[in-house]
């Protein structure tokens, strides 16, 4: 297979010079990998040596990377992180549903829907314009303080609500881009078959739109997975809050590092998966 013409690369109609360049790197593939590995080892070794032999390293290690403090803070941080995970799952589902509703309303045509459309536009602009942390504070402290009858008083509820409201605005825009990327003839064909606007969206436009925006939605997952930690400011004992409590008690920062490790353990695989999925998607589109 190798040497029988250019492989199916990710650039359609790749120019001849590029093809040449690619075949060059293919021929030198083994040597290239060797160079990459060697230079990585050298760089990592140099950086480690420089850090570990510096005068401040023992202090840094004591403050940030102390195995004893790590072990001591771990149980509380893990249980806090479990709350982060659950908050993420609940919020993400709510966001995906609510944002889709917003995007569908925005995609409705005809003068009768103008007020609804206008409302979603105003909503999206407002929510995208306010820092999330401000919304978290506003709803998380503000609404329980109002003491309204029949309204939940839990800061956790309102903290999550703030995240959902804000993220839904962004996610609605993602869906909207997806709906607009579906060819106009698809809408026309659906309407011509007698489907109502709503049925056309439901059975024809949205299913295609969602497929087109899966990578963008996954990026949103990574981002939300970290941003749920913002509710720490309401005193909710998730991972960051637990690390902060540990730090206040021991004046040691290793608990924060423990929390960071946990967030990374989830977000890095999702980010890798997103890249993989997007690349596969691109290949499929070019093949088809």
């Amino acid at each position: 297979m190798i040497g029988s013409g250019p492989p199916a690369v990710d650039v359609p109609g790749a120019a001849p010079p590029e093809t040449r360049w690619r075949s060059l790197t293919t021929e030198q593939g083994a040597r290239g990998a060797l160079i990459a590995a060697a230079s990585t080892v050298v760089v990592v070794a140099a950086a480690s040596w420089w850090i570990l032999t510096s005068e401040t390293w023992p202090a840094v290690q004591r403050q940030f990377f102390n195995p004893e403090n790590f072990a001591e803070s771990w149980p509380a941080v893990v249980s806090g992180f479990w709350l982060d995970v659950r908050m993420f799952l609940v919020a993400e589902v709510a966001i995906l549903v609510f944002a889709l509703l917003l995007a569908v309303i925005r995609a409705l045509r005809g003068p009768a829907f103008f007020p609804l459309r206008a409302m979603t536009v105003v909503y999206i602009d407002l929510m995208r314009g306010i820092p999330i942390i401000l919304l978290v504070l506003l709803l998380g402290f503000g609404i329980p303080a109002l003491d309204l009858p029949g309204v939940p008083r839990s800061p956790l509820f309102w903290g999550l609500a703030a995240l959902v409201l804000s993220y839904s605005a962004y996610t609605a825009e993602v869906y909207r881009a997806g709906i607009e990327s579906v060819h106009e003839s698809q809408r026309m064909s659906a309407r011509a078959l007698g489907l109502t606007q709503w049925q056309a969206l439901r059975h024809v436009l949205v299913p295609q739109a969602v497929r087109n925006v899966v990578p963008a939605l996954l990026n949103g997952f990574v981002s939300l997975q970290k941003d749920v930690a913002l509710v720490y400011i309401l005193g909710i004992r998730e991972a960051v809050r637990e690390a902060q409590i540990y730090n206040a008690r021991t004046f040691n920062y290793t608990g924060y590092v423990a929390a960071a490790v946990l967030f990374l353990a989830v977000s890095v695989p999702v980010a890798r998966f997103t890249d993989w999925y997007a690349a596969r998607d691109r290949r499929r589109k070019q093949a088809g």
Partner: protein
Amino acid sequence: MTAVAKLEVRAVSKAFDGKPVLVDVNLAVAEHDVVCLIGSSGSGKSTLLKCIDLLVPIDTGEIILDGRVITARGVDADAVRHGIGIVFQAFNLFPHLTVLDNITLSPRRVHRMERADAEQRARSLLYRFGLVDKEADYPDRLSGGQQQRVAIVRALASQPALMLLDEITSALDPELVAEVLNVVRQLKDDGMTMVIATHEMGFAREVADRVCFLDGGRILEHGPPAEIFTNPQQERTQRFLQRIIEAGRL
């Protein structure tokens, strides 16, 4: 033209952003008749078909289907479209649905048919048009000609009394054109009333009961194909046909 008109277009005009695209168009189509719209690119053929299917609102005039003014206020456009099937040049099929699901979508969702009944009808149509083995395929697995045949079958699945075909072969490789045109011939033999926009002059000549020549949004000339193609009265029609003949398409 003594038969009652199935479809009547009366003094219809349409402009896009102030640019006239249809100008005082009059057209009557008797039941079981096939009318072909010919004319150069941009002459308004597609727009006229979309207006008839109420996919594009007209500015003035009226369109009458089965004696009923469908362009009047308060008419349920979705309901009108149930009686009309339309097939476009391209992008007809829904890529995320199988052939069978493409065909049964409207019968099931719009006409509230049971899945089993809708599928049975779809299968018998697929069988008729030589597509039985394709029902489980996704559109991107089919050739262009097969896709257009499925699109026709899908339009037929709602049992329309009028079919509008908009240049359904012009995106196809030449060797795939014949199989699609054969389907249209079959429909004509069944007595389907059709309005067909086409660049295939030989085909228009063969199947049309009447031919309309559109130019700049006006119907400049219309009549039986023998007249239009052999003895066009208007100078513009003559020039259009001359160009077609030079291009070897007649």
